[in-house]
């Protein structure tokens, strides 16, 4: 039965995250962007919300709540509303824990998950994107080979969040089958694996508070059970769709942040004897933003809902991802336009929103679940 309302538990989580984004994240967003780092105290308070520990089963020390893509989307939107870089930092551990939970063996889970149920922030990460213009997550150039009982991973990655901090990373690589076709595969790789080299911290246009690095994998040998769901293409599709939904939800958050900022400004700023919000050229831009934020959220929720029913959501997640990238960029650009020259100045947040929004359109593999 059609229903557009979150359940009580989701509403409660949402309220909590809204308050956190408003009171803790946003006030630090500008400074974090300028300094290129997220304050440790803020990370700790974010950790204390339990967004990572929540879905880890009690036997590993977590709270044992079932993982829901929809709840994840709600959280991602609200955190990103506060700030995209800080949100990505806070959620980066989930890049590892969610795939582990969904596809990891019991042995692997009991080995890795307890670290994510401790008292303080535990970094985790995924290395998905590759430094090439035509990167294709469905056919990564990073290779995976079987060698005896082990697997060997080789290739280059970029935009790896917390690449230098995470003790374990999820690496996306292509397994070449007997038929010559390349199938994507997710592999858990420990940072101290011989052959793995974490590169320089990257300097990006946006998301400046987030540490991202390059990664070189030179014949990194990993035990068989660290290759998740070997040969299971449906599982890898599901993983890609979880990422798409997570990233799209964050795009909605950024779009909404830009829209809210511009709307409030438009009510205050006066020109030609009126608030600029009373000019249709401005009012209609704001109306479009409001409408598109809602439309985007519904598309994201629909894809998330399908994932939670364990149905193939490739079409929905893929289309939502494309749409939210385009529309969020447009909304951020229009939001800056509403502020005129002031929007161009770093005293206001909109230029930061625009720089961050550009990232969605570019980083196909920027992966958050």
């Amino acid at each position, binding site marked *: *039965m*059609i*229903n*557009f*309302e*979150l*359940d009580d538990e*989701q509403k409660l989580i949402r309220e909590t995250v809204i308050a956190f984004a408003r009171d803790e994240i946003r006030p630090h967003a500008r400074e974090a962007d300028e300094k290129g780092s997220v304050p440790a105290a803020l990370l700790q308070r974010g950790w204390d919300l339990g967004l990572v520990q929540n879905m880890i089963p009690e036997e590993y020390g977590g709270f044992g709540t079932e993982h829901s893509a*929809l709840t994840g989307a709600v959280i991602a939107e609200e955190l990103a509303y506060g700030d995209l870089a800080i949100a990505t930092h806070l959620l980066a551990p989930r890049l590892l824990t969610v795939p582990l939970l969904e596809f990891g063996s019991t042995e692997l889970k009991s080995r890795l998950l307890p670290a994510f149920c401790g008292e303080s922030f535990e970094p985790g990460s995924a290395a998905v994107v590759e430094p090439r*213009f*035509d*990167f*294709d*997550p*469905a*056919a990564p150039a990073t290779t995976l080979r079987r060698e005896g009982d082990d697997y060997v991973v080789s290739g280059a990655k970029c935009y790896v969040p917390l690449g230098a901090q995470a003790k374990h990373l999820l690496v996306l690589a292509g397994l070449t089958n007997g038929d010559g076709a390349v199938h994507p595969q997710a592999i858990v790789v420990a940072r101290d694996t011989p052959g793995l080299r974490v590169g320089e911290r990257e300097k990006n246009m946006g998301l400046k508070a987030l540490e991202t690095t390059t990664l070189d994998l030179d014949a990194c040998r990993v035990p068989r059970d660290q290759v998740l769901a070997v040969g299971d293409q449906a599982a890898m*599709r599901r993983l*890609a769709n979880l990422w798409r939904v997570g990233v799209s939800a964050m795009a909605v958050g950024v779009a909404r942040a830009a829209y809210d900022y511009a*709307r409030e400004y*438009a*009510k205050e700023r006066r020109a030609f004897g009126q608030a600029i*919000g*009373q000019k*249709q050229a401005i*009012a*209609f831009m*704001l*109306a*479009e933003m*409001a*409408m598109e934020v*809602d*439309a*985007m959220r*519904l*598309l994201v*929720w*629909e894809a998330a*809902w*399908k994932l939670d029913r364990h149905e193939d959501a*490739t*079409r929905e997640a*893929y*289309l*939502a991802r*494309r*749409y939210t990238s385009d529309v969020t960029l447009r909304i951020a650009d229009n939001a800056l336009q509403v502020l005129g020259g002031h929007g161009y100045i770093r005293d206001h947040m909109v230029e930061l929103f625009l720089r961050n929004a550009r990232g969605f359109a570019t980083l*196909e593999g920027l992966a958050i679940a």
Partner: protein
Amino acid sequence: MVDFELSPEIMAQREQLHMLAEHAMRPIAREYDEREHEKPWDFINMMWQLSKASDIGPGKEGKQDGKKKAVDSNRNLRTVIAVEELSWGDAGLYLSIPGPGLGGAAVQAVGTPEQKERFLSRFKGDKPVWSAMAITEPGAGSDSAAIQTTAVRDGDHWVLNGTKIFCTSGLMAGDPKNSNGFIVVWATVDRAAGRAGIKSFIVDAGTPGMTVAKCEDKLGIRASDTATLIFEDCRIPLDNILGSPEVPKTSEGFKGVMATFDATRPIVAASALGVGRAALDFVREELKKQGVEIRYGVAPSKLTAIERDFMDMETQLQAARLLTWRAAWMMDNGQKNNLEASMAKAKAGLVVTQVTQKAVEMLGPLGYSRQLLVEKWMRDAKINDIFEGTQQINMMIIARRILGYTSKELS
């Protein structure tokens, strides 16, 4: 809990209507586009029998007269799904289907029990009946508060004078040769009072003083008549006014009249979706015939231009559909949906014009040819960006809402 699955009951209805759209509407769609001003009587009579026999068809409200919404807690959702399906068949034919329509919706929303009995019971008879809504005038369209038609009280009657244009089904509802219908007419009882003086009146088909003067020749939706109605000392009974005859100090009354749009805008949005989906389905089929599959999940760098266009169309339509379902769902759940109804209408109206125009472009010679229906869908689509509030008017309603402006502060 968030859920995007339609109930089995609604799915079954959709299935049924899809068959009807495919087998009873598509085959005559071109014919009644070319033979403008002729009525598809076989189709009309069939729809009338069908809507009486079952509960399908938009605007079926007769059954729960006087009872609260608990009787049918998803009527609005059911209606938008039905309207999308029928408009997938043909938007012009859909608009020509007899039934309570917009006039009936107004009676349903603000009529007294006596008025509901008097006017809505007609829709249970053996012969098709239409109703219509006449707001627009030659000098006032979007600015509906500026209408000039007057209603003056004279003893036991109201006397109407003025001209209404662009009245959908005005011919079928207003001419007694066609049906025992009625027209809901907006008129002012006090020009000096502005919007507070605007009231709506029910005028029976064939009332002396009301003439159906002409029907427009249009770009699209040609199976639906769009009539000019002239009122010259047209006398109607006193109790044919909808709502109170008092002129309030505030414009609350006007807002009440405008509230019917919260129910009807999602319906127009749904009709837009139907036309858009018709075009999208057709494009998909044609591409398939040429061996072109749409590959979801492919890296952006590997997408073809055709795939990009198709995916854009598909996503835009789905975005509009979800906004439409939400607006209807909110109304079913007793929530105020003024903002959301305008979002649905603005989005769907724009999207359907873009999607159908793109379809003509993508299909090249097939798109432009009158042998096929694609060019017709493009012509039919455009109306959805105009009636029930143009694109701009709906954007203004959204803007006022989100900025907290009155109609004086933003117009």
